[in-house]
Every structure is written in C-alpha cells, then in structure tokens.
C-alpha cells in the first residue's frame, strides 16, 4: 500500500512539474489567427455579386426587370435577393410585403447589419425606420429593425 502511495506521489509531482512547464510554453504557443468572419464575408460577397445586376437595374429605374431578376429561383437562398426584393416592394407601395421580406432577410443573416461588414445595409435600414416612424400598423417591423440596429443579444 505504501509503495502504491509513493508511486502516486511521484506521478503527481512529475505531472505537476510538466503541467507548469507546458503552461509556461503555452504563452508562446503560436495559434493560427483565423478570423471566422472572413469566410462569412466572402460568402456574402458572392451573394451580393449575384444581385448586382438587379441593383444596377434599380438605379436605372427598371423596377419590373429588377423584380423579375430578384425572383429568379436561382436566388432562392440569396439573402441579398430577399432584402432588395423587399426594398423594391417597400418603395412601390407594397410596404407590408416588402417589410416582411426585409425582416426575413435580417433575421436569417445578422451579417447584413453587421457594422464591420463593408456591404452592410445599416444605412438603408435606418432610412426605413425613419420612414415608418409613427405608423402604428408597421410598428412590429420598426421594433425589429430598430432593435437589430441597436445591437445587444438576441
């Protein structure tokens, strides 16, 4: 019994010394600096590129063509397509329908309103919030967008 205890004490002592050594080494251990946002931003960039033609159409006032483009089933999973389609509807008197699409987009993809993402849509969201201010029937959308812009958990 005494022998076992002695062995255990030796093991404890040796492993404790090694732990301290490894903790010391840990300080200088190189860790690959991966920013998980890079992959996310890159995938967002590709999605944004896919809807660029529609954005250009909107700039040239070709609203109908832009809607047809954004409704293309190949853009079914493109959060930018949902957002811009929602924006077009919002600006063309289909406010509620538009806001529903915008709400769906920002709920699905927080990167859309991430202040650090270069192509974020925060500026557009702020304009929308101002436009629907005081509109009681749209207050759930104002709450959602305003709250998302303010940040915090959830």
């Amino acid at each position, binding site marked *: 019994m005494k022998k076992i205890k002695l062995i255990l004490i030796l093991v404890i002592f040796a492993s404790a010394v090694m732990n301290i050594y490894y*903790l010391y080494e*840990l*300080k200088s*251990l190189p*860790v690959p*600096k991966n*920013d*998980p*946002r890079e992959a*996310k931003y890159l995938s967002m960039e590709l999605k944004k590129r896919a809807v660029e033609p529609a954005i250009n159409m909107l700039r040239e006032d070709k609203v109908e063509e832009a809607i047809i483009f954004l409704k293309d089933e190949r853009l079914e999973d493109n959060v930018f397509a949902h957002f811009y389609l929602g924006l077009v509807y919002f600006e063309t008197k289909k406010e509620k329908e538009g806001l529903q699409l915008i*709400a769906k987009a920002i*709920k699905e993809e*927080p*990167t859309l309103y*991430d*202040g*650090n*993402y270069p192509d974020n849509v925060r500026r557009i969201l702020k304009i929308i*919030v101002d436009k629907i201010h005081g509109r009681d029937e749209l*207050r*759930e959308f*104002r*709450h*959602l967008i*305003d*709250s*998302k812009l*303010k*940040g*915090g*958990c*959830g």
Partner: protein
Amino acid sequence: MRKETAFYLFTALLMGIFAALLSVYGNPINTGICISCFMENFSGAIKLHQNIFMQYIRPELIFISIGSFLSALIRKEFKARISSSVIYYFLGGIFMIIGSAVFIGCPIKMMLKLAGGDLNSIAGILGTIFGVWLGVKFLKSNIDTASFRISHVSSSKNALILPLTIIIIMVIYFLNPGLFAESKSGAGAEKAPLLLATSAGLILGAFSQYSRFCITGSIRNSLILKNLTGFLALLILTLVAMLINIYFKRFNLGFIGQAGSHTSYLWSFLAMTLVGYIAVLIDGCPFRQIVKMSEGDINAQIAFVGMVFGAAMVQNFGILSDSGGPTFFGKLGVMIGITVFAFLSYELIRDEKN
C-alpha cells in the same frame, strides 16, 4: 437595520452600479450582467457552438466565481455539499438558460432592461413573480423537499474541481487568448475593458457570496416571509441602474425599438415563469448558482454544467429569440421545460404520498 440586511441591500446597489457601468463601457446594451448571455458567450469561447457573433470568455462570469470562491475560503464557508436530486439541478440549469434565452435575458438582465426603459420586460417580471409564487406554493403546500435538501456532505476536495477548472481556464486565457474563440462582431464583440470586467466580477462575486444575493430569492422572500428586504433590493438595483442610464443618456422609455427585446408577451411570461419556478426548486437564479457553485455546492456545480450545456443548445438549435419574437425551437424548448418540471413536481408529490 440588521447587518445582513444592510449587506444584502448594498450588494443590490453594487449590482446596479456595476451592471449599468459595464454596459456603458462596452458590454451590450442592458447586458452589464446577464448570466444567460454570458453563458452563451462562454460556451462559444470554448467552442461548444459556432455562432461567430456570440463567442467571448466573459471575464465577469469567471471572476464572479473567483470572487465567491475567495470569499467563501476567507470566511471558512467553503463546504462540499450535495443532495440526492442532482439530476434536477442539471435539468434546472439547462431549462433556466432556455427560458432566459426565449425571454432574452436572465432575471438580472430582466431588471436591467427595465432600468434601461424597456417596458417589454414587465411581461418577464410578471412571469418570474408568477413562477416564484408557483414554486413557493408547491414547496409550502405538500412537497417532499427532502430531495433538494443537503443529504450528504462530501469531501471539500470534490467541490474544488469545478472552481479550480474555471480558474485554470482563465489562466490559460490570460496566457494565450488565441486558443479561445472570440467574436469580432456582434454581441460577443461588445465588451467592457478587462480591468473593469474582472474587478466588477470579483467584487460582485465576493459580496454576493456574503449576502446570498439572488433575484428570484429576493422575490421569494418577499412572497413567503413578507420580508420587504428582497423587494427593496430589486428596487435599489433597478433605480441605481436607471439613474446611471439616464445620466449617460442611455435611458429609452417605451416598448418599440428596444435592443435585445421582443414584444411577444405571452412567451416572455411563460419563459420567465419557467425560470422563476425552477429557481425556487433548485434554490437560486442562474447568478446565485454561480456563487453557490464556487462555495462548494456540488448541486450548483451540476446546475452550472447544465447551464453551459443549455447555452450551447440555445445557440446550436436556434432557441434564442430575437427582436422579432421567439423561434419555433424556443417555444418548443419552453414547453418541454414546463412539461419536464410539471412531471418532476408530480413525481415529488407522489413520492411523498408513497
């Protein structure tokens, strides 16, 4: 005024001050202290979930534990203890975090939201009061609370494992933070300066260990003992945080456009009813579990593990609500929680009759 009462109220005052300041100096809005949010950040930091917006070690959380641990050691109150119903604590930890995630905030954040002018939090406050009332009724009326009472005092060494693990995690973080996941955007990236976060955690942990401060405990004591100290403590916490918010122009009274808050009042009520009820059964809100865990309560340590597990679940399964309201899985989580705890409560009554 008795010394204990004065300390309890003073802890509430400190909680209000630090929680408001932490938010002013970097933590997410109305989230100076929020154990459920911190748990989600912590579980993300140790890579239990991959939401890149919710990963940060949250030194406040760890230093609350260290502060309580040191206070318990100094005051010779560090004692290992365990009851026969550890599984209740594990499930309690999980479902308190799920309930808090559906409401968006633990009971402390619930008060801080009100202090920030967010009137949506009233539904949560009413839910918590109702949950605590139900729990108190349940405990007072019939029930075998023996399963929750300490039935076994274990060796103190057993109870040291988790507090020491947490200290080691913090040491590793200080030595090489790159080993942990850390958000660069979103709520996880909103953080108070390290010195403020650590000292706030340390002080709040130590004072809460001494005073046994707890949000749901405050409500419970007001309901059972008709002792207004708890009510007064919550009032002090809220008013102090509110004054600081007003001073820093962060007070925004209303329902609409509140950060990290939704307007689904029924779900806020139900979610916090679940949290309040569980908190009475397992003797403490999420914050109190951290403090108890650090003074050797192995039940609370199991609850802590449950909370970490629950926090990872909340993120991995889309349980966390957003300002649009609760998600499908959030509602499901609350309903499962209510079913599980109704069943466990029923079993306790039946066991007692047998």
